[in-house]
C-alpha cells in the first residue's frame, strides 16, 4: 500500500534540494542554532562596508522624492531596490556567505 504522503526516496538527491519541505526543515535548523542570525549580521555588515546599503538608500530617496513621501509604501521601496539590490552584490561577499552556509550544511549533516 502506497501512502500518498510518502516523502521522496533519498536517492533523488538533486530533487531533494528543491523540495520545499526539506528546505523548511533546514531553515528551522538554521534559525534554532542561531546560525541564520549570525549569517544575517555578517551579510548586513559586509553590505554596509562595501556601500551597497548606501546605494539602496539613495535609490529609495530618489523614488521618494519623485513620488512624494506621503504616498510611498514599503512595498514600493522593496520593488524599487530588489532588482538592482540582487544584481549588485559584490562577488567576494556572495562567495563568503555561500561558503559559510555550505559549511553549516555540512556540519549539520544535511
Amino acid at each position, binding site marked *: 500500500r502506497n501512502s500518498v504522503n510518502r516523502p521522496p526516496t533519498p536517492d533523488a538527491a*538533486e530533487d531533494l534540494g528543491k523540495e520545499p519541505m526539506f528546505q523548511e526543515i533546514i531553515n528551522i535548523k538554521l534559525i534554532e542554532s542561531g546560525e541564520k542570525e549570525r549569517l544575517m549580521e555578517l*551579510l548586513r555588515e559586509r*553590505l554596509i562596508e562595501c556601500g551597497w546599503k548606501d546605494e*539602496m538608500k539613495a535609490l529609495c530617496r530618489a523614488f521618494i522624492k519623485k513620488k512624494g513621501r506621503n504616498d510611498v509604501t514599503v512595498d514600493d*521601496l522593496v520593488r524599487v531596490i530588489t532588482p538592482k539590490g540582487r544584481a549588485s552584490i559584490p562577488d567576494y561577499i556572495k562567495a563568503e*556567505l*555561500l561558503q559559510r552556509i555550505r559549511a553549516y550544511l555540512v556540519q549539520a549533516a544535511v
Partner: protein
Amino acid sequence: MSGPNDDNMSPHTQLSSHFFGDLLDSIIVDVASECHRIAKLGLDRNLEEEEEELRLSTQARVRAADPSNSGEANSKYVVDIFGQTHPPVANEIFECMNCGRSIMAGRFAPHLEKCMGKGRKARLKATRSSTAAQNRYSRGSPVSTYSPYSNSSSTNRLSNGTPGVAGEEYSNGTLEEP
C-alpha cells in the same frame, strides 16, 4: 538565487544559494523599511530642504507669472503673517473731536496740527472762529488756558508759550484770571 544552472549544481550549492537569497531578501526588506520610516517621520533633513525649496520656487514662479503684479504694487501691498494686506495710508474715517470734520485716520495727525493751532493759520482760525468747542486765547496775559473736556486727550497750547496743565477738564470751558 536559483538560476538556469540548477541541474549542474550540487544540492548543497543550490541549497546555499537558496538560503543566501533568503538572507538577501530579508535585508532588502529591512533597508526599504528603514528608508520608509525615515521618509514618513520626516527625519531626512535633505528631503525637507528640497521640498521647501521646491515649494518656494513654485510660489515665486507663480508670483512672477502673474501679470497683475508690478514691483511697486508689491512693495506697497505687503502681506503680513496673517495673510492680510494693509493699504499704505490708513483709510478709516471718523470725526475730528476738535473741529467736527470727517477726517481720514491716516491724515489725522497733520489735520490736528492745523486744526488745534500749531501753526499761524490755526491760531488765527481760533481767535476768529465762532464754532463751539474752540479755545479762546487772551491777548498777552499770563493765563493758563484749560481746554474744554472734549479736547482733554491732546496737549494744550498757550499764546504766551508756557506749558499748560494737560488733561484737566472743566465743564464751563476756559478759565481766565483777571
